[in-house]
């Protein structure tokens, strides 16, 4: 039936039935058709948009900003055709606000921005964390602070992604290294947001956002679709923040017959504010953090390229995002020259994969940490390595990727 509907008819159908109904194979097929060929030569920003649409994203609110504009452009063109909504907002504060509202109405929702917009979003990212709103925020990092270099890439928002809003909370941040991974990890971001009811940040950058590479679009059976756990309780028995033992409460989307009170104030399980109870606040914030901290093993993703053995001569390299591309090449050249190098690529920046990093650092005679900033992840590595080993930060700013030679010099130097 869906196949025969015009875009306009499908849009009306989707507004009534999605998200209440699952994002089914026939809905996916409609998205897939709108995206065109299976093999594409596409930019990271486009791959992010395609990943979102394939994951079932039906809502995008944003404010265009270089180098993230292409994501908004594609979403504005395609979302209306597949039963979704695109709203160009007055600024980034409103954008994340609209995304949070859309998520509570049941939609998988996303926004995309760059440094200056990401800074503006921080208060509402905290609100999303406090209200446990599943949503995806793409930050196409550019050189900062402030307006910086709009068309250049950077990795200067790694710490902001975790610590940008005030108070204690946890969220998830992912760093793709290829255009294909921009697509794959955006799908993953939606799944994680829906599973843990947190904002998930996709940290790309101006280099990868604008870079074009070959991508292959996945089919329905290739994707594991995850939707938030909703409640089946009787309306009278439901409380929005009851802990069923998983630390992740069952969600009742707006308009589904449940009484749901949402506030950024400290709240009890009922959802109603409780602003002067130490116990209520502590219980809430601890649960917000523990639902992520207790699942670091499940959430955290790394790529290990270890040679095993080679003992105390080994030099470690820890990278993430686009910088890993230089490391891949440097590692090949170093091994050809007889150097023992082990490379750990961090895919999940937050929660930080402490165990993997500690393991590598503890057995390497030195560990090189290349970043497109003045040393941000370096602090995290130092924190889990007891300061015992030689940690070498390789700093670079200004929009240019480390050359493989610069990585090699960091290792051999």
């Amino acid at each position: 039936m869906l196949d025969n509907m015009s875009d306009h008819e499908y849009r009306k159908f989707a507004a009534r039935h999605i998200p209440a109904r699952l994002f089914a194979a026939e809905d996916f097929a409609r998205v897939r058709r709108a995206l065109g060929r299976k093999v594409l030569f596409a930019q990271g920003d486009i791959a992010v948009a395609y990943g979102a649409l394939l994951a079932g994203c039906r809502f995008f609110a944003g404010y265009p900003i270089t180098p993230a504009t292409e994501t908004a452009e594609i979403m504005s063109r395609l979302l209306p055709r597949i039963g979704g909504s695109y709203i160009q907002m007055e600024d980034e504060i409103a954008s994340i606000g609209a995304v949070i509202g859309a998520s509570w109405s049941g939609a998988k929702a996303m926004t995309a921005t760059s440094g200056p917009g990401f800074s503006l979003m921080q208060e509402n990212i905290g609100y999303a964390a406090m209200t446990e709103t599943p949503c995806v925020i793409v930050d196409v990092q550019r050189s900062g602070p402030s307006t910086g270099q709009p068309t250049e890439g950077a990795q200067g928002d790694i710490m902001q992604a975790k610590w940008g809003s005030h108070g204690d909370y946890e969220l998830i941040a992912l760093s793709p290294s290829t255009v294909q991974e921009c697509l794959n990890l955006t799908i993953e971001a939606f799944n994680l947001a829906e599973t843990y009811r947190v904002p998930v940040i996709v940290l790309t950058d101006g280099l990868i956002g604008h870079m074009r590479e070959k991508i292959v679009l996945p089919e329905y059976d290739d994707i594991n679709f995850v939707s938030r756990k909703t409640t089946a309780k009787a309306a009278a028995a439901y409380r929005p923040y009851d802990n069923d033992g998983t630390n992740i409460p069952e969600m009742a989307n707006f308009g589904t017959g449940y009484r749901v009170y949402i506030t950024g104030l400290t709240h009890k399980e009922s959802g109603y504010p409780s602003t002067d109870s130490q116990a209520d606040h502590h219980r809430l914030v601890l649960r917000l953090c523990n639902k992520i901290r207790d699942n670091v093993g499940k959430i955290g993703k790394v790529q290990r390229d270890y040679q095993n053995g080679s003992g105390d001569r080994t030099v470690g390299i820890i990278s993430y995002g686009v910088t890993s591309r230089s490391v891949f090449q440097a590692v090949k050249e170093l091994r050809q020259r007889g150097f023992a190098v082990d490379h750990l690529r961090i895919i999940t920046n937050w929660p930080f994969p402490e165990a993997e990093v500690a393991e590598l650092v503890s057995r390497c005679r030195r560990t090189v940490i290349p970043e497109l900033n003045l040393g941000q992840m370096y602090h995290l590595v130092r924190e889990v390595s007891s300061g015992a080993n030689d940690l070498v930060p390789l700093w670079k700013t200004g929009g240019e990727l480390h050359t493989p030679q610069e990585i090699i010099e960091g290792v051999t130097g």
Partner: protein
Amino acid sequence: MKTEFRFVAFGGQGMILAGVIFGEGAINDGKNAVQSQSYGPESRGGAARAEVIIADEAIDYPMVLEADYLVALSQPGYDKHAAEIKQGATVIIDEDLVTAENNPRAGAFIRLPFTKTADALGQRIVTNLVMLGSVCAIADIIKKDALLEAVKSNVPSKFLELNVTAFNQGYELGRQARQ
């Protein structure tokens, strides 16, 4: 086998689009490609640079350090990147836009009338397609049909014929230059 191309011009001359088409053509031809670009905040007038790496294997480092092919349609672009080529590289310049003596590192130094050819077609805007046709013939690593397919998917259908004509004329220029 990895071949690195750098296209330099002023913003507005269509170099980035040319790079996109070139990379997509390589994908159509079953190869791997990465295209990256550098440009300022202005939409035209500033320096614009497109880089394309074409390889049979996976491409790790995605930027061009020393090009196998440097294609220059602006004097400042050429001056800035003239030294960043491999020993024995091919340099291709628009003879009316770039004044240069033979590049000491170049194995081949080719001057072609890209802009003049486009002007003769009545549309200077297709200079990039003339250039692309020439590079296709000179480098000879992407099949012409695969590249033309990429031209079709990247230019407005209304102007397809003009663009294909420009490409073919450029291809002919390149073929002659190669001999």
